[in-house]
């Protein structure tokens, strides 16, 4: 079963155009001109139940707009959305009972009173039976380690504590889909790791589908089996993280230090036919770029080891940060050349 199905989804906004100068301001009083801004341009994707999917893209590329349409806050201009079997904006009241949402930049808890009070309110809002609620709260409290802060008012919590409470709040009614909009923003590395672990655990235990937007690619690496990348309202990549690295990554690089002086010609001769590129740092150390394939690494090393005395080896990989930065920088234009799954 698919948790989320989206096809031809489009969102346009009418943006007021302000004319320049005093004369323009007067004209605006009588006749306003609007320009059409297309935030999301006919995107399609499907997310099966139980998948953790990362939704990434630069600021202002339509991520939040998509999330808002998926959660029923915005009505799409065109296209189909089915989430959990409902059309979000049409069946809003029932639909929202089956989803959980966390906005990293906005608290959904009551600011001035104890966290537990907000949880109690949510129990009534979502009509969770007392026994289920208690069991669920116990689980979440234990997993997120929020037992001793439940009675504190939200305004007195640290950001990390608050975010853990927000997550608990969004899961009290056991939603089958969880939408997270920048859940780790502003958190320190320890809290980030804990939250990632927690999300993985929720996904494993309850098969919760998770769609998260983030600017922290470590979130994606730690959590997501799948990434959807958005640029200027269009999907420019949709697929596995490994695939992304394979397609856009520049492969692996091996750095070698030798116990004897050597030359680039000699190294090239040793690895002839493997399609690798050598470069010398100096006569005692060299780098070899291996564009594709894990098995080549051992072949390269194998052919060098017997011949030259090796003192040190370091294998580095283009990390996701670099890949994504590269994609953002070049934008969607050059992407045309690369087939998109």
């Amino acid at each position, binding site marked *: 079963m698919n948790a989320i199905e989206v096809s031809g989804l489009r969102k346009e*906004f*009418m943006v007021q155009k302000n004319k320049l100068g005093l004369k323009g301001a007067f004209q605006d009083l009588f006749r306003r001109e609007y320009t059409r801004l297309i935030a999301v341009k006919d995107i399609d994707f499907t997310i099966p139940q139980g998948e953790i999917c990362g939704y990434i893209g630069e600021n202002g590329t339509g991520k939040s*707009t998509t999330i*808002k349409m998926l*959660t*029923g*806050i*915005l*009505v799409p201009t065109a296209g189909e959305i089915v989430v959990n079997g409902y059309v979000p*904006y049409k069946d*809003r*009241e*029932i639909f*929202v*009972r089956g*989803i959980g*949402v966390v*906005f990293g930049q*906005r608290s*959904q808890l*009551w600011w*001035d*009173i104890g966290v537990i*009070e907000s949880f*109690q*309110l949510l129990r*009534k*809002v*979502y009509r969770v039976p007392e026994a289920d609620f208690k069991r669920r709260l116990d689980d979440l409290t234990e997993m997120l380690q929020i037992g001793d802060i439940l009675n504190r*008012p939200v305004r007195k919590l640290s950001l990390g504590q608050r975010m853990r409470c927000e997550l608990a709040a969004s899961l009290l009614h056991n939603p089958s889909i969880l939408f997270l909009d920048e859940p780790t923003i502003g958190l320190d590395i320890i809290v980030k790791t804990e939250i990632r672990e927690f999300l993985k655990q929720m996904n494993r235990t309850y098969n919760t589908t998770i769609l998260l937007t983030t600017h922290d690619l470590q979130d994606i690496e730690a959590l997501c089996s799948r990434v959807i990348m958005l640029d200027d309202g269009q999907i420019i990549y949709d697929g596995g993280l490994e695939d992304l690295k394979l397609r856009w990554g520049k492969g692996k690089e091996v750095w070698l230090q030798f116990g004897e002086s050597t030359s680039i010609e000699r190294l090239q001769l040793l690895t002839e036919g493997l399609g690798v590129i050598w470069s010398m740092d100096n006569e005692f150390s060299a780098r070899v770029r291996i564009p594709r394939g894990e098995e080549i690494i051992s072949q390269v090393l194998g052919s060098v080891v017997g011949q030259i005395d090796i003192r040190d080896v370091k294998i580095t990989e283009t990390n996701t940060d670099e890949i994504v930065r590269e994609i953002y920088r070049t934008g969607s234009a050059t992407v045309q050349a690369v087939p998109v799954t």
Partner: protein
Amino acid sequence: MMSVYIDFIRMRFLTMLAYRVNYYSGIAIYAINIGSAYFIWKAVYGDNAVLGGMTSGQMSTYIAISWMARAFYFNNLDQEISREIRDGSVAIQMIRPYQYLASKMMQGLGEGLFRLLLFSIPGMIIVALIFPIRLPLDPLTWVAFIVMIIFSFFINSQINILTGLSAFFLENNEGLMRMKRVAIDLLSGLVIPMSFFPLWAEQILSFLPFQAITYLPGSVFTGNIVGMAIIQAIGVQIFWFIALLLPLYVVWGRARKRLFVQGG
């Protein structure tokens, strides 16, 4: 479903408790307001026994009860709603399976009940000891008064919500909110009872919803409105309560449409 809304009353009650200092400063402000109004009216009356159809004793009672009723019906729903519209958190609340405006109304009621219990009732006892105030003896008057301040709350909150929702359509509704506040205090009869306005103004005001907030319940309490006229006064309140539902429905419908289509 009702239990959710009752919980909103509880939540707001707890929030109010979290800010006790606000509450103490409120007591001081109301004491000053009641005291100054009392002495001003005492000077206005001078040797006159009756002015504008009210005896000076009725006037003292009217002032005290009007301010105490205000503590109950008054709320800042307009500012809350327009703040939530401006910072976008109103959209976020659409992901919850409850009615936004109903939840706001209930929170207003929680605030009102808090002030009624911890402020108006003890305040009224103290004021009754200091100033010459005559509380009604007929229990039916009390019943009518209680019913009437509940309607005062609803009418006032409806006006507040309408003012707050204007933030959707105006770039800055600060002025409108301030105007509304002054209009309610002045035109509802809190500062000057309706019967002291010139006849033409009194007639105009009787066609506006404001008098139903303070003047009508206050007059019932002081005994200026008696008998069948009480039923009529409640009728006026019910009329305004229903009449204000229509603009509320229309404005909220348009606001929601704007929210869902334009994102606020």
